[in-house]
């Protein structure tokens, strides 16, 4: 796997729900290298405002067509600029970067738990897992129904999706982690999760207590994205000194590596929202 630098050609950039967007980029050299759970480091502007790149998970990839999809939420200056890109424009992407999900080599039963935009790194994971004939269930929680529209993309490749919405407009009304109560841990070989930190903490607890192997995907502000600047570190366990680099050692970590705290003050483990 050789990450690189590529000017991807935007094929489509559409609003999918509220402040959520999907961007499809033709970036064949990059697409070939992508592994589920890795991320791209994207330059949102060709100037100094903003200066730094922005990390975005690889949402989906069609390696043969050289196509990468990104699912992102507009939260600040960089993502606002991303939303303004039009088809046929070019965007500078660096990657793929980081250590993605540990993939099952053969058919296994997988449980995916995505909270909000944290569903982004789960789609390509699901696609590759389905190619390996895994049975995949996704528990997908979001604040409102529109955000859950992406569930169809999962269902299309044969993922069994259970929906939850905080406003109760679609699926189970409430937190996606409540859906774990209906799951039988022994049904699953692996659980993968990405979402807000408190959500991931609950999933991690469920996995640990029920002995299911699991992975989480973390977030930190990044500069280099390649492990050079030591800017994106995170202390996985507040009782053990030392830091990991989210960009290089992660973003994916095993649930057992992370000790979740009740609170997540600055500097402790936080996850995708």
């Amino acid at each position, binding site marked *: 796997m*050789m*990450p*690189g*630098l590529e000017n991807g050609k935007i094929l489509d950039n559409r609003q999918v729900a509220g402040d959520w967007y999907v961007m499809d980029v033709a970036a064949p050299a990059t697409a070939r290298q992508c592994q589920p759970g890795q991320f791209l480091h994207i*330059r949102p502007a060709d100037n*100094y*405002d*903003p*200066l*730094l*790149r922005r990390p975005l998970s690889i949402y989906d990839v069609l390696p043969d067509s050289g196509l990468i999809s990104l699912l992102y939420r507009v939260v600040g200056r960089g993502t606002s600029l991303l939303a303004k890109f039009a088809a046929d424009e070019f965007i500078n992407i*660096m990657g793929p970067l980081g250590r993605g999900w540990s993939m099952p080599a053969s058919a296994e039963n997988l449980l995916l738990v995505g909270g909000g935009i944290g569903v982004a790194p789960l789609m390509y994971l699901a696609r590759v897992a389905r190619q390996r004939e895994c049975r995949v269930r996704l528990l997908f929680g979001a604040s409102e129904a529109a955000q859950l529209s992406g569930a169809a993309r999962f269902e299309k490749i044969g993922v069994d999706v259970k929906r939850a919405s905080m406003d109760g407009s679609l699926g189970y009304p409430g937190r996606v982690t409540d859906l774990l109560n209906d799951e039988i841990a022994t049904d699953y070989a692996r659980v993968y999760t990405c979402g807000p930190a408190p959500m991931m903490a609950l999933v991690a607890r469920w996995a640990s207590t029920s002995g299911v192997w699991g992975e989480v995907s973390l977030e*930190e*502000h*990044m*500069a*280099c*994205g*390649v*492990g*050079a*600047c*030591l*800017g*994106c*570190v*995170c*202390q996985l366990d507040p009782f053990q*000194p*030392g*830091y990991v680099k989210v960009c*290089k050692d992660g973003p994916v970590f095993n649930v057992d590596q992370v000790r979740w705290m009740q609170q997540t003050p*600055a*500097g402790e483990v936080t996850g995708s929202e």
Partner: protein
Amino acid sequence: MNNGHHPSPNLAVDLGGIKMNNPVAVASGTFGYGREYEDYLDIAAVGAVIVKGTTLEARLGNPPPRIIETPAGMLNAIGLENPGVEVFLHDHLPYLRDKGVTVIANLAGNSIEDYAAVSACLEGHAGIAGIELNISCPNVKKGGLQFGTDPWMVQQVVAAVKKETSLPVMPKLSPNVTNIVEIAHAAREGGADALSMINTLMGMAIDVEHRRPVLTNIFGGLSGPAIKPVALRMIYQVHREMDIPILGGGGIMNARDALEFILAGASAVSIGTGNFVNPRAAFDVLKGIQDYMQVYGVQRIADLVGKAVLR
């Protein structure tokens, strides 16, 4: 040898004994140990790779958040996280040496003895072209006063390191001072072979929603294009007062920026934050410098150094 009418420009630089094939280095703390950028460019072709700041013992660094973007710049408070000099020498240096990378070690400490000791450790290890001394560290014996802000301490620390090493020594000056020329003089008095200028400006950012400093360390070092005018000024001031090779940096993003530094008086340049934005920056900057030299018929890079003059 190029015998044509437009011989390729001579790009080699002798930075006070540090031999570089070309004037474009990458700055400490922004390029890891080189390997991190291997997928993006030929790290052996970079003028010099200045590796992450190294201390005698391993350091954990500061708790996150450690970085935050600012207008045309960024603040960092990494806190010198590094595995210690032994790990550098045994895990990283051999690899770089085998690759043929021009390596400059960046050393840090919290006492004169620290600096001397870490410098002594490098002796006998092939593959290090020179030492860059990060003197923007607090001197614990002087109540945390930064070495780099006091001319006497600068002279002392440079002299102490010179005594321990046969390598060229290049202190990296802190811009957070009233009189940079005075500091530069002190460094030379201490025996500096070259100067690296500038390290980051001390700054901070505040989270107005949570009413707290953004960085857990409160203060951080400001780097990136925002600081370029300050860096250029300091290099110009020092170059016009004294004759010592300068490695100039602070906000270099492209060849034009690099040329500003060279014209201000830098013999070579270093790219820091620019690597994060463009991982091929060192390559692109070098290419742009070569183009400029061709366009203007400049034979040797040295012919441009300090050539910005009012007419």
